[in-house]
């Protein structure tokens, strides 16, 4: 049930960032997901120890937020935005294509445990609608056909790291705005790739 020394070291760094222990709950929950792939009961118990809460208090917080997954959600979590702006630009067809190609409906993970599909509310890519996220890395301007290709590619390639700009180039279309820069940092699991929480691929951490 205990975390690796490396995760513990990260947790200690996170704890220092906040004036009160309880504030570290959400960062530690991400850390726990990094450790186990999703949020396990043991993971929540561990977070409870760190923050001085009871496990059910931690669960109460975790279950409030959509991104803390209390069950396994595949190696790649494909989130299709179906909010109004994306819907207007054909997001429902993209969602149908993803479900069909992945073979699982909203909220489920395929039998191999590789791909999980969900439709989500607005992910802030309305200018590049319709948009999809893979492990919270964004692809904008996607068509149903590209979405199928994306799912197929994920299943076949199973990349260790999801890099938004790579995916955008392969499967995306128009973006909300230009970046002009290419990033190499990426996600290593179905949680946001953000350094301080230890969720970026190892080689990218400085």
């Amino acid at each position: 049930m205990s975390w690796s020394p490396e995760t513990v070291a990260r947790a200690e760094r996170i704890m220092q960032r906040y004036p009160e222990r309880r504030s570290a709950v959400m960062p530690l929950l991400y850390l726990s997901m990094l450790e186990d792939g999703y949020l396990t009961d043991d993971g929540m118990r561990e977070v409870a120890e760190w923050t001085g809460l009871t496990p059910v208090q931690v669960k109460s917080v975790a279950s409030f937020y959509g991104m803390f997954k209390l069950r396994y959600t595949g190696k790649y979590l494909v989130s299709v935005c179906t909010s109004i702006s994306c819907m207007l630009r054909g997001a429902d067809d993209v969602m149908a294509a993803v479900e069909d190609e992945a073979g699982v409906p909203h909220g489920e993970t395929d039998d191999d445990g590789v791909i999980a599909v969900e439709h989500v509310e607005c992910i802030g890519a309305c200018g590049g609608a319709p948009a999809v996220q893979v492990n919270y890395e964004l692809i904008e301007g996607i068509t149903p056909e590209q979405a199928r290709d994306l799912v197929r590619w994920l299943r076949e390639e199973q990349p260790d790291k999801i890099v938004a700009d790579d995916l955008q180039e392969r499967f995306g279309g128009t973006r909300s705005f230009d970046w002009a820069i290419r990033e190499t940092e990426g996600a290593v699991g179905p949680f946001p790739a953000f350094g301080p929480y230890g969720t970026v691929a190892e080689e990218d951490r400085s």
Partner: protein
Amino acid sequence: MADLVKITVDGKEIEVEAGTPVIDAAIDNGTYIPHFCHHSRLEPVGLCRMCLVELETPRGMVLTPSCTLPASEGQVIHTKTPVVDKAQEGVLEFLLINHPLDCPVCDKGGECPLQDQTLGYGPGESRFVEEKRHFEKPVPVSDLVLLDRERCILCSRCVRFAEEVAGDPLIEITARGNQAHIETFPDEPFSSYFSGNTVQICPVGALTATAYRFRARPWDLRKVESTCPHCTAGEAIEIDASQNQVLRFNGIDADATNQGWLSDKCRFGFEFIGSAERLTVPLVRDGDGFRESTWAEALDLVAERLGAVIESRGGEAVAGFGGARGTNEDAYAFSKFMRAVVGSNHIDARMDDAPAAELLAAVQPRATIGDLDTASTILLWGPDLKEEAGTLYLRVRQAVQKRGAKLVVVHPRRTGLDDRATWKFTYRPGTGFGTLEAFASGAGDFAEARKALDEGPVVAVVGLTGMTEDPTLATAVAAFAAGLPDAKILPVARRSNTFGALDMGCAPGLLPGRVSFGDADAVAAFEAAFGAVPDHAGLDTSGMLEGLANGDLAAAVLVGADPVRDVPDGALARRALEAADFVVALDLFLTDSSSLADVVLPAEGFAEKEGTFTNLEGRVSKVNRIVAGPGQTQPDWSILEEIARRMGRPMGFDSAETVAEEIATVAPAYADLRWRDVERKKPEGVLLDGGWYTPKAPAGPDVDADMVLHLARTLYDDGVAMRQSLSLHHLAPGGVAYLHPGDAERLGVTEGDQVVVVGSAGEATLPVRFDPSLPAGVVYVPFNQAGVPSLGAGAAVEVRSA
């Protein structure tokens, strides 16, 4: 007292304390505002939106919840405008759209705020044609409480109670929005000692108690107000019964005592009353067993055998145990019986497990429970209140949490209040006097706490931290507290009416009404009332047991006493009762002690008789009858009166009220206190004054041993009432030896291994559990657990690997 302000509710001007939630102000003044999430003992949250009212503001009428609106001068509130009506009807419709409407099978149906308020404020019909939300149900959230999530309206009263009041945040709302629901963590049930309160405050039938579930419907319950029969805090309760069966206890919001809360022991510990094991006919010894007899035969036998003992060896050869489990009236009759009929001062309601009787009955200056609300520092040097006086624990907790009172806890191990303690000092049992000396001197670590105590006002909660504690340590602590500039003392002991029994003279050194043998005038008054009173104090429980065991005493009268289970040296108690020439027991059950008696007389128990209780602050409250005792049971006073008559010395009682009448005329502290006075002050009861005992500091030697024993009671144990309350009995921790991991390592044992604990009066083989809160060299064994031999009260013990 805060400032008074005037507010106007529906055109009626009312005067309330500034800052009172408007909803409370309105309801207290006769304008009902419907609500679900609001509870006057919990912080307002404004979730349910049922209590919306319109408030006049410079910008026009504003719709606002009245529970989160603090009263301030000049507010004008309207509770019955069309806007309010529409909003409330809307809220009720929202609450009902996903409600299963299974009122016919719901325990709350008939006393349900959701039902009542729907009738008063709700829509006639639902317009919801969609499918309702479904959840798995019922889900046990603890051994005692079941949850039906479909009925839940997410008012969060249970969640808030658990966190704010009980301090056990083990039940929470999880998920979000429409899917939000109440949950406990897997394998971590809501095993709070106070979980039952959530059932009482749940405004719908979402939380139900296993002990009451489907046993009755509210409309066929009969109700009576009474006082809790389990702990000494004197909680006001309501007893619900149907078909001559007690089915439920609920807390009553008595501001002075429990403020509506009960511990689960108090709430669910009613099952013993209707137990099938209850004694229903008198039993007379027949060889190794008993045979049933008639009352006449049994009473004749008792009178004859007791008379014989008195004749041959004098009244002082008879020992009297008990009184703490009955009413004041029963205790008074027992006290008078021993003094005036038997002629003995050997009587004790304490089972060798409580501080000095004078300290408990007559300490001065004595605190009330309410004083905890104003104390700036609370000193707790006594039992773990969470285990031994649940509602007092809540009150101390509240004082610290809500008001920021400072709390000093001195105890041999972790207590329930440690997380709230400003200062916590742990010491080895047996070193109390040394610890007190250091503490009083304010040396080292004690400096800050000692300084806070000097500032006052202080309430010192004093009792025995454990049963291996020298009972005079409590006196020493009280003496220390009495010496502080501004401190009052609140003595604590276990077993429902201990304080009442001591007040009634069930103590070797006290006569009824807190009269000491040192007070010649008062004793003389008793001689007049009783005929004759022995002129010196008698033996206490351990003295009487030793006397019986070694033949100094010859007979024993047990009134609701089970010394074999209740005293620390159970083996001595067993030897004593076996050695006695004659033992008569008045009891509800054939206990380990009464089964050693020669005659066992079936007594009426709680809820079957009328009388009064006196709580630990000296507050007298009424105990009422709602069911008939089973079979041929009689109240204690009546049995004792019958025996007295047969012994030719009638006491003159023909009802409990005549006993009460005599108490009011004879017992000084209870002078002129009659039942109707107590009833009139319901639910609080009448607070007595009349303390005269200023504790003086006795010093004692500290015990020096490698291993010492901390023997302390837990909320649930193997006591007689618990053993007969099936919902609770299995919750007792059972036989365990708690060791500091360091000691365990030294002994070469780990968790789950067996160790032998050799105490001063017995040994037991127990599984080990780690408890890092213990000081090194201390083994903690919960007292009175099923199947565990008693160890004795000696602090020094030997522990070895089994």
